[in-house]
């Protein structure tokens, strides 16, 4: 019997090392033209009035690279759990998140689809507003409420911190 293998990690020369030394491959997509970035950003902000544009950098990094590789690499979202684990993050409930923690979005299959970093937490009488900064694929960096991502990016599902205290 011949077993079919699942998807293989992308063949790539570039890697980053997690804090544990775990190797994570990186991709090298071609950069979008600045004019194309602007066109896409206008379209994406039009989807929801509360989304703010933060950066139009066309350097080819993605949401994972923004958080785990200082805006220098494109790391497939499939490696999000590896990076969280190997960088020493632990999962926390939503009510314990603080600025600097990471939110993981999942699609309707339950697969990781996006990550962002929490930059604002503001408690009101009965609710808490949480704002996130995230890079949307090859498009721009946006600042948005935690629930205000493009539907293709899934829903905020899990929260992680590397704080030494909670």
């Amino acid at each position, binding site marked *: 019997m*011949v077993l*079919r*293998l699942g*998807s*293989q990690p*992308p063949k790539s020369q570039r890697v980053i090392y997690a804090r544990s030394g775990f190797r994570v491959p990186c991709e090298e*997509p*071609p*950069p*979008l*033209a600045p*004019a*194309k970035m602007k*066109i*896409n950003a206008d*379209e*994406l902000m039009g*989807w929801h009035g509360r989304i703010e544009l933060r950066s139009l950098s*066309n350097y080819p990094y*993605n*949401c*994972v690279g923004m958080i785990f590789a200082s805006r220098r690499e*494109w790391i*497939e*979202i*499939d490696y999000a759990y590896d990076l969280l684990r190997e960088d020493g993050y632990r999962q926390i409930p939503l009510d314990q998140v603080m600025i600097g923690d990471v939110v993981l979005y999942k*699609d309707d*299959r339950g*697969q990781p*689809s*996006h*990550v962002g970093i929490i930059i604002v937490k503001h408690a009101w009488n009965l609710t808490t507003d949480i704002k996130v900064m995230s*890079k*949307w*694929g*090859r*498009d721009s960096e946006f600042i948005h409420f935690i629930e205000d991502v*493009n539907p*293709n*990016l899934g829903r905020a599902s899990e929260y992680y911190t590397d704080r030494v205290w909670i």
Partner: protein
Amino acid sequence: MKLQDLFDQLESVSFQANMSIFSGFSTFYYALQKDELVQTLVSHLVASPESAREVFKRFFHILRNNPYPGYAHADDVSLAAYLFVLYQVEPSLAHHVISQVIEAESIWWTRRLAQRIQENESAETRMQEVEITLQLSDIRLSFVTDSGACHKLSLIKRTPYSGANVSVPDTRNTAKEIYAKAI
């Protein structure tokens, strides 16, 4: 919906911006699979197979016209959608597309889709390996073909085991010759 209308929508800023936001091929591919416009084009081509050639021509028309030379192709996600649709409906045309884009640097998602199709087809070919058992006298020989094409046989088991390492290169060998090599 007319074919031209589908082209217009699949090449629109809205489609491209919303499909450009993925951070991994797995999520991009999943989005293509469930996208309504993409599925509409698949249905259109199933109902009108002759339209597949129009999609094919459209693909190369767009591919040749990148408004931003030196940067990622502006219509990359549209091209990926067309390749995805062609592969669903008219794989022979898709294979021609793949041969043209598999090394192209400026089309990120399209190239990765082409590579994934090739990888999957390669895996499927391996799945077509067939085990053949040959019983001669008191010795049983088991062979496996190297691919669905059955160009080669490799001995994988000899019962009773003799430790012989036998490679049988060609199915044109007669059973007698195979047997002679195996023992």
